[in-house]
């Protein structure tokens, strides 16, 4: 039997922010805010609309979507930091609204914005240790874990104070701060932001290792390439709505779509629309078009059995095909297909 750790149903979140007007201070602001205590419809921001989600124990699950899609809002709801406006859910059997006090003892949350919570007068090491002890990790255990993660991520700046750290360094310190706590459920909200390639790969390795030990990991990002290494099930959000749910290959609406990467001597602007109109490719925009040393690297989503049509169309235009390779469907393929063919159409 599959052990579902996270289960949410019909989650919606509507924010009703107070507009802060710069001119209002003191008594003017008190009166204005008292008047605004009632809900004002026009201020409302719908961050999530009827989202369903279920994640199994030991699973790496991805929440993907562009900026403002509702990824962070969803994770905060699953952490008990925000209450949903509508809907219900449980995390490890605990109700996300009523049991938020118990919930916080089983989750660890790393956010891209948490580096702002680092104490600037402290060293990187002191920051992690302070947080770990605050969360009840015994000091000796915390020190051991900090040393281990420091070695793993090749951190040689533990003794530096926060202002001396770059954005990427602060981010990895925030990540280690979340990992040191060692809880059964780990939420990673945009963890790859500002990280260099080496740190991204190291973080991916850690995430896989933790999942293999049975930890449930929810990871959000708008950088899909970082997530493909996990081949995760995912929830695809767009303006708060679910536009896809499942593995990358399940997210495409029809079967028999195969991504191909090609290296071409040129890529005329009209080629793509011709291929799309004739039904060879299923997406209107090139998946990736990178020009490097006058070579056009293109990734296209083809309908099954139409490779020969693609090749003949290219050759007809006297374009050299330097390489053609069949690929597996990535999250990015699925996302771009959804957004360009279903949402923006």
């Amino acid at each position, binding site marked *: 039997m599959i052990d579902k750790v996270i289960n949410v149903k019909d989650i919606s979140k509507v924010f009703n922010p107070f507009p802060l007007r710069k001119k209002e201070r003191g008594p003017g602001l008190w009166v204005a805010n008292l008047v605004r205590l009632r809900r004002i419809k026009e201020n409302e921001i719908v961050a999530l609309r009827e989202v369903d989600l279920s994640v199994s124990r030991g699973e790496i699950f991805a929440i993907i979507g562009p900026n403002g899609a509702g990824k962070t809002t969803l994770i905060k709801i699953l952490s008990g*930091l925000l209450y949903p406006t509508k809907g219900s859910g449980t995390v490890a059997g605990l109700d996300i609204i009523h049991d938020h006090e118990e919930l916080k003892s089983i989750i660890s949350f790393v956010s891209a914005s948490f580096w702002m919570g680092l104490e600037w007068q*402290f060293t990187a090491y002191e920051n992690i240790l302070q*947080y770990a002890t*605050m969360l009840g990790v015994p000091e000796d255990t915390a020190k051991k874990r900090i040393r281990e993660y420091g070695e793993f991520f090749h951190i040689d700046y533990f003794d530096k104070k926060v202002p001396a750290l770059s954005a990427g360094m602060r981010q990895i310190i925030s990540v280690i701060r979340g990992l040191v706590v060692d809880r059964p459920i780990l939420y990673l909200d945009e963890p790859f932001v500002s990280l260099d390639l080496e740190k991204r790969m190291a973080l991916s390795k850690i995430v896989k290792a933790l999942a293999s030990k049975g930890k449930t990991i929810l990871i959000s990002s708008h950088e899909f390439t970082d997530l493909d290494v996990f081949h995760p099930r995912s929830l695809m959000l767009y303006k708060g709505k679910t536009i896809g749910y499942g593995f990358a290959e399940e997210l495409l609406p029809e079967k028999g779509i195969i991504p191909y990467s090609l290296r071409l001597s040129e890529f005329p602007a009209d080629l793509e629309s011709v291929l799309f109109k004739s039904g060879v490719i299923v997406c209107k925009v090139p998946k990736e078009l990178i020009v490097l040393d006058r070579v056009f690297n293109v990734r296209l989503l083809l309908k099954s059995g139409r490779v020969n049509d693609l090749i003949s169309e290219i050759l007809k235009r006297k374009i050299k095909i330097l390489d053609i390779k069949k690929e597996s469907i990535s999250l990015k393929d699925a996302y771009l297909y959804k957004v360009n063919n279903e949402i923006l159409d």
Partner: protein
Amino acid sequence: MKYLINQVRSVIAFSKREYIIWTSYKVNIVTWILDVFINSTLFFMLSLLMGKNTNIAPYGSNYVSFVVLGLSAYYISYTNLGDPYDRVARIYWNGTMDLYLLSPLSLITPIIGIMYRSVLDDYPRVLLAFLFGWLFFGAHFTFYQPVTIILVVILLGISTFGIGMISASSFFLLNLKVGTEPIKFIFQDIIIALAAGYFYPISILPYSLQILSLTLPHTYALDALRRLMVPGANVTVPVLPLQKVLNIRPISLDLIMLTVMSFLFIYLGFFLYIKGIEKARRNGTLTRWQ
């Protein structure tokens, strides 16, 4: 029990952090000492000027002692009443509210822990006020009932902290994140400044302000402290309107009122603050960066 120990450990950890932060601003320490010295001297100069003609009976006859106690209550009140809002604001603007709420700490623990900064910053002023008053300006004090004195100080601390928490709750309840906060402004800057009787006995105030002063813990704390600590003070003559109406010993009445206010304000403060956090969880205004 384990939960309580963890809260205390966290308060100590926060305090250590605040100490490190505080001492990292070395120039600030020098300016702070200068500030305490100049402010205290200024108050004592004024008290010396006015003191000779001031009738402070039944609180003895030493006006400097009378003012030292007023200043001490002012410092304690200033920290406990004004600090919770400022600390909540700091947690909010620094983006650490999420981190604290995800920790096993109670909602109040981080605020108390971070207030250690104020303990460093403001409470030594009380000791300095006593020291300056005694060394340079002829203040004398009696300590006949030390337990009652300590109890009054603790109750004053708790009740003003309660008002401080009511003030802090407005940060989320009324979404007052910029400008002046109304509860602190109304209590600290208007009612307390006018009617607390830091520098004069409240019996010289118009009757309406005397009645207003009955809503303040300061009134009862100062009445008790002055009766107990100013040499020659009378412990039986009623001064406050309530003492004149009720047939209870003035100091006993002061203690009863301080106890009632401590429970009332602390309960209200925590209740409203928790409601404020709940509201922020619903509205999504817990952190600056949502």
